[in-house]
């Protein structure tokens, strides 16, 4: 029963994607965009700035230091 439903859902999506016309171009654009965003932009241009610290305690120290120092040395 569950397998039957899963197959029907799969076929629903499969037939839907196969019958797309303009959708294929859109999917291509979406995939290129996601590649550019997650592989190029995220890795090379947008690393997590606080990711260089190993743990939360180091991040807390860093941010508190930043917040305190910037008030003294704006």
């Amino acid at each position, binding site marked *: 029963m569950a397998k039957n439903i899963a197959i029907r859902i799969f076929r629903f999506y499969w*037939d839907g994607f196969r019958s797309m016309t*303009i959708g294929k171009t859109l*999917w291509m654009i979406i995939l290129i*965009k996601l590649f550019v965003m997650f592989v190029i932009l995220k890795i090379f241009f*947008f690393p997590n*700035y606080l990711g260089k610290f190993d743990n939360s305690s180091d991040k807390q120290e860093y941010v508190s230091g*930043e917040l305190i120092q910037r*008030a003294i040395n704006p």
Partner: protein
Amino acid sequence: MMEAINTSLIDWSRAQFALTAIYHWLFVPLTLGLGVVQAIMETVYYKTGDDFWKKTAQFWMKIFGINFAIGVATGLILEFEFGTNWSNYSWFVGDIFGAPLAIEGIVAFFMEATFIAVMFFGWNKVSKGFHLASTWLTILGATISAFWILVANAWMQYPAGMQFNPDTVRNEMASFWEVALSPVALNKFFHTVLSGWIIGAMFVVGVASWFLLKKRETKFALASVKIGAIFGGIACLLSIWTGDGSAHQVAQRQPMKLAAMEGLYEGREGAGLVAIGLLNPAKTQHDDNKDPFLFKIEIPKLLSFFAERDINAYVPGITDIIEGGYRKKDGTMALSAEEKISRGKLAIQALADYRAAKTDSLKQQARATLDEHFQYFGYGYIKKSSDLIPPVGLTFYTFHLMVILGGFLLLLFAVATYLSCKNKFENKRWLQWTCLISIFLAIIAGQAGWVVAEVGRQPWAIQDILPVSAAISNLSAASVQVTFFVFLALFTVLLIAELKIMTNAIKKGPQID
């Protein structure tokens, strides 16, 4: 010693964020508005069983799909920017900002993603009722998605429901409901969604007008104009109500923004609302005694009414907010900017003392000082009081542009509704041209609204708590400049691709006639 944060880094980071947000906001309102229009058309099909309405709904659904596909995930870039460019901010607000965004991602997005498949693939495969329900649930999912994003944005404008923890250096959520249902969040949600409805409605009326200008698909175009114009007119009327609510909330929580929106330097009782005005470019300081306007037409007492629901109420101007000393609604005297800056410095020093304290009693002492002055924490970063004034010209003109365009669109929808109901729209070519051009005016009005909201609250990343100069990561300005232009190129290419695909689909038409 830490290097000083230069203004170029702040400006480029803000420009990059603004560019991304403006690009993202090209797609979102069309998704919200066009989605409702197509769902209304499918509802008519469900009620009547007339195949014309099915084809009409399917055409708009195709346009909706193109917009949705190109716009999908553009908002994620904003989240990348938070992590890279605004890392102090991200850490400082993590728990509060993270919760609404997580709910948005988990609940709303998956709801949207599930039902959108049925909406596009389910014609003739599921029952009419189930398909219609899927269409409405897709739009509901998109709207709920917008709600959680706007809750996060509203918290930056009005930080509520949180407690600052000096151990973790984070604001922690004290009340989920205070964050989610703050008056600023609710008002922002309704006003923003309504602006999306207006843009979507104008898009439908404008594109349908193009078909009439081309003398194609006449029945489809006239039906689309009628539904779009009625829907847009209702959205415009409701947005007057939410706009009034926005002005009231801004007056209560961000008086400096309201003063900048109105170019109000000297506060007064029974303040009038500037309907049209030309700012005096010679006025460069709030206290230079120069007239802020070269010319203005004012509606008497209306600003006081919007701000305080009392036509004789006092509305503080920019100079008053900087100098303080006026009596606030709660009876207390307003502090001067200098006093707030002093208290902010005390709060920051208390945070430093707390983190350096070796004994519990020293910690408690520092904590008490921090809690007492935390509401002014961000002022401790302000170098001079005039830094608290947002760009008055940009805020004033974008606010008035938004209002004027909103009024124009209401009039346009009213005329279009009247003429389409009287079956006279088809021959009014001047009106069809106006509707077509007005698609861009509606988009400009929506963007102007965001400029008012975001530029008007400068210098704050979080109102009163954290200015952008403290929120920003210590990056090199050059690297931010590079990514700005990378984004500009990427967004331009994607926008050209969208316009090309969308215009091709529109030119093909619904092929009903």
